Structure formats: structure tokens, C-alpha cells
């Protein structure tokens, strides 16, 4: 079995056996979005205007909060150390970890987003753009955030620090992600904006794992 498949399988198994790590970000996403009507107004017109931003920001925060568990467990049990001293490039194992993490935490967000969009009165035609933009955006968020997670893995209680590092890096994804849904809401074409999101995803996936691997090496004191 190749390195990629073996790592992916291991990570998926570990994730599925600790279901809290999958369910918690999803639960967070749903709770945060449903807080907004309570805080703002139940009026459909207002909520519809705010929905793209609310759903996107909530998804972004859910991805960011799930990142803390990305390398933490492996760091505590020493598996990360083994990964770093093992021969060969780190690119594939890191990419496999990120894939598994996105499949377990990001994909559920994408799947549940149309429901939340519907609850915040987004028109049904716009829901397509919502899940498509999240499908392109959340993996990019996972990869970019993983750079911050790798750098803070050796920092105790690095949660707030991680947010400080990662949130400014999330700005472009948020702008184009929420922007695409907003455009769809205005009845404009969205394929160009989704293409930009795709470009950001391609950049993140191709270069991101290198940065994550370097960050892990730095954190291990190498």
C-alpha cells in the first residue's frame, strides 16, 4: 500500500473511532448559525441578506476550531516524531492527513450547509452556489489553517494564537466564498468567482503541504 493510502486509511480509522471530533465542528456550525436569527431578527428579508456571510463565517470558524486536533494527538503519543524521522518526503503523508481531516470535518459542513441556508431563507437556487463554494473553500481553509496548526503544535494552549495566525490568512477565501453566494443572491453569474476559489484551492493544495511539513519540522525543533 502506498504511503498516501496507508496514512489516509489510518487517519480515517482513527477519526471514525473518535466520533466526537467529527460531530463537534458540525454541531458548532449548526449552533452558531442558529444563534444569528436569535441575536438579530427572525425577519426573512434581513436574514436572507445576511445568510451568505453568516454561514460562511460559521463554517470558517468551525474549520479553524477543528484544526487543533489535527496534529495534537499524534504529537502527544509520539507518532508525529516517528513521521518526521522516517525517510522520504513528508509531502504525501501530510497531504493524506489533510485529506482525511477534510473528509471528516470539512465535508460534513458542506453537506449540512444547504439545510442551514434554507433555514436562513436563502432561495433554493442559491443553495447550489452555497454548497459549491463551500466544497471549494473548506479544503483550502483546512490546508491554510494546517500551516498555523503545524507551527503551534508545540505551543501549550495554542488555540487563541492559532486563531490570530490563521484568520488573516483566511480573508481571501472568505471574501470570494461569501461573495459568490452574495452574487448568486443578486442573480449575477458566479462561475468566475468559483473559478477564483478553485484557483486558491489549487494553490493551497499544491504548495500548502510543503509549508505544513516545514512547519512540523520547525516545531519539532529541527
Amino acid at each position, binding site marked *: 500500500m502506498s504511503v498516501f493510502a496507508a496514512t489516509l486509511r489510518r487517519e480515517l480509522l482513527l477519526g471514525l473511532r473518535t466520533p466526537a471530533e467529527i460531530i463537534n465542528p458540525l454541531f458548532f456550525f449548526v449552533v452558531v448559525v442558529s444563534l444569528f436569527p436569535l441575536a438579530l431578527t427572525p425577519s426573512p428579508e434581513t436574514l436572507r441578506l445576511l445568510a451568505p456571510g453568516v454561514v460562511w463565517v460559521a463554517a470558517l470558524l468551525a474549520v479553524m476550531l477543528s484544526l487543533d486536533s489535527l496534529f495534537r494527538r499524534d504529537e502527544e503519543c509520539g507518532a508525529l516524531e516517528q513521521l518526521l524521522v522516517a525517510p522520504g518526503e513528508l509531502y504525501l503523508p501530510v497531504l493524506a492527513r489533510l485529506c482525511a481531516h477534510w473528509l471528516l470535518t470539512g465535508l460534513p459542513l458542506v453537506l449540512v450547509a444547504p439545510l442551514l441556508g434554507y433555514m436562513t431563507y436563502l432561495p433554493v437556487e442559491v443553495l447550489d452556489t452555497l454548497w459549491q463554494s463551500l466544497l471549494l473553500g473548506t479544503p483550502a481553509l483546512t490546508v491554510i489553517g494546517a500551516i498555523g496548526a503545524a*507551527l503551534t503544535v508545540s505551543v501549550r494552549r495554542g488555540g487563541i494564537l492559532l486563531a490570530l495566525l490563521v484568520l488573516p490568512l483566511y480573508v481571501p477565501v472568505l471574501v470570494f466564498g461569501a461573495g459568490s453566494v452574495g452574487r448568486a443572491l443578486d442573480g449575477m453569474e458566479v462561475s468566475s468567482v468559483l473559478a477564483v476559489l478553485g484557483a486558491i484551492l489549487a494553490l493551497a493544495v499544491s504548495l500548502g503541504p510543503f509549508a505544513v511539513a516545514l*512547519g512540523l519540522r520547525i516545531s519539532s525543533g529541527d
Partner: protein
Amino acid sequence: MTETARPVPGHFYLWSGLGLLVAVALYVFWQAPQPNRTVLVVGGYLLSVLFYFGAVRYPHWYWQALVRWYHQLGSPRHFYRISGVLLPYLVALSGGLLLVGLIWGLAFSPPHHEQGNSYRIIYLHVPAASGAMMGYMAMGICGLVSLVWRMKMAEVAIKAIAPFGATLAAVALITGAIWGRPTWGTYWIWDARLTSMLILFFMYLGVMGLQNAIADPRQAGRAASLLSLVGIINVVIVRYSVDWWHSLHQGSSMSIFGAGGSQIHPSMLAPLLISMFGTYFLFAVAVLIRTRTEVLWRERRSRWVKEVLR
């Protein structure tokens, strides 16, 4: 240097002639405002000819000097010596430029035809904003140098740049708010430039936070290097995305200088440019002083530090 000068090869004339053609074409067809165009085209041409001439006639000397400087600046001891020689000149240069630029700008340049005297805060605002941008670029380049060549001095430089860059970004934001009140009628608008400066400020804070959170200085330095390198890509993308976002909202696009960029009258541009260069040199001074202190602290057990401090 005992290297003998080589004769000028024929292709030098060919290429400099072509360069002259390009410069003339740029001068004629480039749509930039007049004084900037002259300075940029003539200055750029002269600089490239100088560099090419030197590099062709004395290639060995050029290369050797570059390599020597690079290695000397990378060693803490030589860095301390060289920066100690440079520092007084830089202090004088930045002090002089800032004094001339600010007094000229604040007291002697003509008032704006719409904004009266309130526009004069530009002489603080624009230098601070551009210094903050340049500072982040410098930090990213130091990050690359530190990660590729593992140069200790580059890590120290990042630690020195981050707080001063954050300060400049904060100054740019605050003076922008003070300026915005009389011109726009509000302290803050979600303008594309304001927003990207705010994000730049957050990114400086991130580098400082990471630097402070890790106890081991080498590890903290390398972590900050990676973050500032990633951040440089982000700065560029944020710039484009925020422009796009702003044109999407198309609300209050109250750009002062219009779409053309710097359509500033020369009598206002000259003091502005002088204070900008003054700010850059001030940046260099602040970074050098902080770097020197940090170098002394990190190398405190070595003999040369004990000799310096005796």
C-alpha cells in the same frame, strides 16, 4: 582588487541602444502623470546602464563584493561591526529627510483646493502606510533567506521588523481615521485600502504573537520566518480580493486621487516623497538598533561581545 578591466564588448552598445528605444517608447506611450514618468524612465534607464556596465566590465569584482557582503552580514560579529559604521549616517539621513520633508509638507506646501489644510496629514499617513507595506515585504524576504540558508541574522531581523512594522500600520490606520473624519465625515469606512491595511496589521500581530509564544529563540525565529513567507503570498492575494470585494459592494468609493493613482501636484509630491524616504531610513535605523541589541543578547557568551561591551 587586482582584476583588470575587460574591454567593452560589442553587444553592450546593441543592448544599451535597444534599452534606449524601450525607454523612449515607455516615455511616449506610458500613461503615467508627467513628473513621475520622467523620474521613473530616466532614473530606471540610468540605473540599469550603470549596473550593466559595471557587471560587464568588472564581473568578478561585482560577484565577489556581493558574496562577501552577504556572508559578512550573515555573521553576527561582522553585522554588528558594519551596522555600527552605517548607523550614524542612517540616523543623520533619516532625521534630515524627515525634518525637511515634514516641515516643507506641513508648513510650506500649498493648501489643497478642496480640503484646505486638513490634507497635510498625508505627510504622515502615506509614509507610514507605505513603510508598513515595505516592512512586510522585507520581513518575507528575510523569512525566505532564513529558511533557505538558515541564516541566523535573518531570523533576528524578522523579530526586529515585526513590532516597528505593526507600529507603522497602526499609525497609518490612526492618521487615516483622523483624516477621514473631515474629508469623508466618518472615522472609518470599509474602503479597500483601509481594509487591507487593517489585515496587514493583524498579520504583523500574528508574527509577533508566534514569536512570543515559542520559548526557544531559534525555533521561534524559524516559525516566524515561515509565517511571514506565507504571509507575503497572502498580502498579495488579500490586496486583489479586497479590491474585488470593494468593487462588488461599490458603496462609498471616495478615492481622493481618482482612478489614476498619484495625480498629485509636484509641489505636494516632492515633500511627500522626501518624507517617505525619511520613513524608510527611520525604519532601517529602528530595525538596525533592535537587531544589534538582540545580537548582543543572543551572542552574550561569546568573546567578541565581551570585548565590545568592555
